[in-house]
């Protein structure tokens, strides 16, 4: 496994620049703030068109046979990181990563082509914090019944992928009752779902779910690296220009040391995520260990970076008008998404033979 490539290729660097430039123009702290403050939409539809259709990024994990770009995990991770850096309110993670991966496990499906083009979005109907087996709804006679709490991005999705008795079913979202929950991170809103004999098609085996969750853990970790990296960069820039006591605040050693430690942690998180992504791209020999590692390290650095960002901005970091809180909320919410660090450490213990109980 040590021959996996952990550094970016030139193509990946170009992709990163392209996405970052686009987001700098179309997804600023102020625009996300306006999106969140209005609370009206499920996601930023205009931005999503640019991301999905304009730049073709919804197709990254769709097999080529279904009109996609093939399983381009390395590219998808670059996109996830940049979208995290911008706390972009678009369903890339939920639709283009999680739902697409779940569907991709089935031999082929026409839905995939429509997801690849950005024409439709889909959401896997599981609780946002799910990390093990999903709660199963009941499926009978081509219809699904039951409820799921706290589903990410289901509010704006066209299609819901619902785990039920004997497989994963596709349901038109209009057939479900969806209740929006005021959620800690309004850039990725949650809603509760109620399905009552909703017409459904079997689209994949249930085994698709754990695989999708594993990919989700890695991609959300890439996103978290983006969140942390915005927080660190923004804090450093602010501390260079903010003067107190006749000095730039960034010259105070206690803050410098904390930021140095944070940078070390971020550097490590980059390496861990790079490893998990490279492992996925190479076929996933170490996928379970790598995914848990990435989710733990990514979650911890994102939360710490966002907390330091708020604290080191002082009063202004505590206001609604400064975007720091968007990152704090995203960081904390994604830290429990697809399993908290604590859950993943427990899983890892089993995987690496460090059990709590004597065997």
């Amino acid at each position: 496994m040590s021959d996996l490539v952990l550094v970016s290729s030139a193509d990946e660097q170009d992709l990163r620049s392209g996405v970052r430039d686009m987001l700098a123009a179309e997804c600023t702290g102020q625009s996300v703030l306006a999106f969140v403050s209005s609370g009206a939409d499920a996601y930023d539809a205009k931005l999503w068109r640019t991301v999905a259709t304009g730049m073709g990024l919804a197709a990254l994990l769709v097999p080529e046979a279904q009109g996609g770009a093939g399983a381009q995990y390395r590219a998808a991770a670059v996109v996830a990181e940049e979208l995290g850096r911008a706390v972009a309110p678009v369903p890339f993670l939920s639709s283009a990563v999680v739902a697409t991966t779940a569907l991709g496990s089935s031999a082929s499906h026409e839905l995939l082509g429509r997801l690849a083009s950005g024409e439709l979005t889909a959401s896997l109907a599981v609780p946002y914090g799910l990390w093990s087996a999903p709660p199963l709804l009941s499926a009978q006679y081509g219809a699904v019944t039951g409820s799921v709490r706290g589903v990410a991005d289901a509010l704006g999705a066209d299609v819901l992928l619902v785990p039920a008795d004997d497989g994963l079913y596709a349901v038109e979202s209009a057939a479900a009752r969806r209740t929006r929950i005021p959620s800690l991170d309004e850039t990725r809103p949650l809603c509760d779902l109620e399905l009552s004999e909703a017409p459904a098609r079997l689209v994949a085996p249930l085994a698709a779910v754990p695989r999708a969750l594993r990919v989700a853990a890695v991609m959300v970790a890439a996103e978290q690296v983006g969140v942390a990296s915005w927080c660190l960069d923004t804090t450093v820039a602010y501390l260079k220009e903010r003067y107190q006591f006749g000095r730039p605040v960034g010259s105070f050693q206690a803050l410098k040391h904390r930021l140095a430690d944070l940078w070390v942690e971020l550097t490590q998180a980059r390496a861990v995520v790079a490893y998990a992504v490279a492992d996925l791209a190479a076929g996933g020999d170490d996928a379970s260990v790598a995914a848990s590692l990435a989710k733990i390290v990514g979650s911890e650095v994102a939360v710490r970076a966002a907390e330091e960002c708020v604290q080191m901005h002082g009063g202004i970091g505590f206001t609604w008008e400064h975007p720091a809180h968007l990152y704090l909320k995203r960081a904390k919410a994604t830290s429990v998404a697809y399993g908290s660090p604590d859950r993943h450490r427990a899983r890892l213990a089993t995987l690496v033979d460090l059990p709590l109980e004597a065997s």
Partner: protein
Amino acid sequence: MASVMTEADLRARISAFLAEHDPAAAAGGGDADRLAFLRARFDAGLAWVHFPAGLGGLGAGRSLQPVADDAFAEAGAPDNRPGRIGIGLGMAAPTILVHGTDAQRSRFLRPLWTGEEVWCQLFSEPGAGSDLAGLGTRARRDGDDWVLDGQKVWTSMAHVARWAILLARTDPDVPKHAGLSYFVLDMTAPGVEVRPLRQLTGEAEFNEVYLTGARIPDAHRLGDVGDGWKVAQTTLMNERVSIGGGAMPREGGMIGVLAAAWRDNPGVRTPGMHDTVMRLWVRAEAARLTGLRVRQQLAAGAPGPDGSAVKLSFATLSQQISAAELDLLGDEGLRRDSWAMGRPEEVDFTGRDAGYRYLRAKGNSIEGGTSEVLRNIIAERVLGLPAEPRVDTRVAWKDLPR
């Protein structure tokens, strides 16, 4: 100088007062009854018993105050809603008492204590947070008035306050600490504009206050011109004493919320979270016992520096505990009650939902002195470690980089 007032004396006075003024009737009556009772209590010297006679007190020892408060509470008397007038009670009043003229004391203290007049504090500015002495709001002398221009921020209660204590720069040509003066501002005066300041919880507890040619009569200056920094020390010292103060039972405060979440949700327990909860429980109990010990030191007349430890660890703990609660609850903890912009007049750090608690706790290490400033204070004043090289204390304020 030992106080001549004993606990027995005080209790006798209170009994006599209550015999003459029916507490239950006042509590059950209208606002006017309530106010009449409170005014009478003030005039009887039973408001803050350690204040001088004639100003709501009896010149008694500070340690007798709980005797009075408990006695009135037990009798069912109406209180002055201390949560709503905390700035007046905790910061303005002690400052007026020490630095005010007789006229200022007589004018301000009684309606302050009864709650008729709410106070706010206009110190912090967008450009002067930790470095309060660097503030830039200008006060220019004009006849018998001062004319104010500038912007203040983080002002709780400004939208309901009648008066503000305010620190402004009267001389930009001298080093920053020397050019400040301290005023009482009428919040209803022209040129005072209050705007809500929404915070990351969604609520707007605080305000921004814009001063545009607002006038303050020189008679409302507290202390000498140029002595503002000295006067402000009295205010800030009292602020620090009041934060994180009250006695609490075991599992009081934020740790009680986390412990309840643990007990109520056996399904989400893991060994790792158990370790986290236990570590925080121990830290919270240690902090609580420290508070208990600080109060005993205060009561014994030996106020050690441990109070700063209490405020610092309060901030750290409330943040760690509220974060652990979210970790424990997983996605269920992400569900908020609402993002609507409320304007709460009293703040409960342990209230609302887990997300609110997590977000609100972020303020605990910023408001009332950042944790960083507090660590500097402990390092220099308690441990006696040397100050860093200073570049801002001998230069005229106007020449400082900013």
